[in-house]
């Protein structure tokens, strides 16, 4: 009996310890090279003087300390953009949360044409953002907006009317209307995702819990506040976190709908970073602006981790 171990090259690929890292390698390399590295670069850029014309950090003298941050902070537009980003996100997501709860409840009921309604309600999320926003852009056109036409027909717009004497509202040309429009389109865009996540949570509430509540004589409102909403809370948090991220970091809506206008009144961090960094060619300042997104992202990532961990503990 030979007690020699039969370690054999042929069986190397059968070992977990060999195969596991090998399988993970491509994903990890991809993420490190094209997410990790750019993230580090974003920070480096923000402290350097790189431009589109001279995009290299070649030495010590390319670093300018907090100059970029001082420069962007002293710019009125940046502060507008920062405020708009926060305000747009907060307002739109409060509305989304409210509407998503209602819509999820509607879609969890049975009614004729439910599949069609679900399909239509999902459209804003399934369409490429830029193209969906383009539809709104046309609906809110300064001259041919159908909303303006309706207002004119019922006597709200035009000479001698409450919103007159102009014949158009100039939805995207007036500060508050434009800001309202951006929020509206945010709601329109994020509502479907939040709804379907909540819907998944609703359908996961066991039928016997609902039956028990019925038998206990709990009415609609009591069931809503004491059963559905508390049970939905974790999933609502997930929906909200996703929605916040998408709204907070969005560039497309601001860019396509208003291009930040009028006079930068709908500028957000992402769009301002784009205008400064790519269009203006000042990569360093653009990166510094975008860096202001990071704290919120980190906070949301931590919140997500906690939620996932709690979900894992509950199912374990």
């Amino acid at each position: 009996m030979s007690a020699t171990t039969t370690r054999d090259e042929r069986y190397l690929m059968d070992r977990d310890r060999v195969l596991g890292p090998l399988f993970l390698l491509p994903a990890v390399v991809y993420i490190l090279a094209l997410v990790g590295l750019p993230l580090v670069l974003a920070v480096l850029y923000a402290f350097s003087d790189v431009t589109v014309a001279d995009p290299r950090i070649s030495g010590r003298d390319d670093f300018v300390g907090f100059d970029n941050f001082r420069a962007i902070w002293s710019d009125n537009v940046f502060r507008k953009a920062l405020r708009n980003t926060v305000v747009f996100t907060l307002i739109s997501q409060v509305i989304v949360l409210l509407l998503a709860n209602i819509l999820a409840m509607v879609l969890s009921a049975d009614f004729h044409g439910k599949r069609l309604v679900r399909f239509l309600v999902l459209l804003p999320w399934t369409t490429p953002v830029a193209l969906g926003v383009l539809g709104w852009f046309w609906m809110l056109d300064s001259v041919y907006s159908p909303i303006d036409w309706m207002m004119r027909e019922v006597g709200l717009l035009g000479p001698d009317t409450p919103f007159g004497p102009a014949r158009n509202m100039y939805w995207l040309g007036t500060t508050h209307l434009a800001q309202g429009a951006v929020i509206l389109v945010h709601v329109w865009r994020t509502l479907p995702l939040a709804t379907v996540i909540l819907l998944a949570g609703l359908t996961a509430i066991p039928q016997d819990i609902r039956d028990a509540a019925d038998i206990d004589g709990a009415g609609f409102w009591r069931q809503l506040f004491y059963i559905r909403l508390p049970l939905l809370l974790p999933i609502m948090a997930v929906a909200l976190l996703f929605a916040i991220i998408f709204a907070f970091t969005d560039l497309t809506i601001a860019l396509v709908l208003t291009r930040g206008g009028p006079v930068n009144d709908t500028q957000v961090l992402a769009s301002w970073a784009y205008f400064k960094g790519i269009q203006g060619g000042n990569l360093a300042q653009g990166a510094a602006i975008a860096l202001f997104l990071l704290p919120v992202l980190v906070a949301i990532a931590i919140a997500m981790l906690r939620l996932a961990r709690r979900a894992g503990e509950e199912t374990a």
Partner: protein
Amino acid sequence: MATTTASATETHTEQAGRNRGQRVLGRVVLYVVATGFALFAALPFAWMVLTTFKADSDLYRPANNPFVYNDPPTWHNINLLWNDTSYPTFILNTLLVAVVVVLITIAVVVPAAYALTRLTGRWGESLGILIFLVYLVPPTLLFIPLTGVVADLGLQNSKWAMVLVYPTFTIPFCTWLLMGFFRGVPWEIEEQAMIDGYSRIQAIWKTVLPVSLPGILTVVIFSFTLSLHEFVYALAFVQSSDQKTVSVGVFTELIRGDVFFWQSLMAAAALVAFPVALLYNYFLDRFIAGFTLGAVKG
């Protein structure tokens, strides 16, 4: 005795009537609210379709009722889109980018998701969540440094820049999505294949992959549509028309200065929106399972 019975039945019918009234009211509210939401969501799309077939003479007259065809509908705008713009090129670019991104995603995600579910034990799950969190890092934070990286690689103003970068958001989400599917494959059929004389890789190829085909298909659809959706990178990386995808292309070709080819723009959007919506709708439940972080067990 008789009176009590009578009054009892009376209150009974009264209550039944009230219940029925409430139920009818409930149904009415339900339909009204559902219709309201459907209208809100679909209005821009209805508007796109309506606009697509309008003649210039109809569209650009503010006094015309914009909800009807005052002049007969026309195919002219779609013809213009197909024949006189780079729209077909945009479509081809979009498809090419999406298909290659799907291939890269599958090649990277399948082994990674397998390793995280099967080979790495308990910390695999945690690493999976970490990889998922990468999905939350938005393009708006990365597009500026990535512009530099892309330039260093000599890919500026090329659709291959998008091919290279798009997997950064498809890989994290799809790894997570596929982990869910792999978790559902019974361990034993794979071990059985190894007992039956196959190596680990053969066992995966012959048992795990065929059984999780629905999951892989979901990954294909999801990474395909995510590539279709992308706007920020496409905008930052590519300037020439022949390299552009639909999302950014239509803006340069159909908006010339301040002249908007509205009908063709709307046609361009609608032609992409509806097929993608149908795809999504079919695979919806599987995407949601990914988004809910396992907090909901289907």
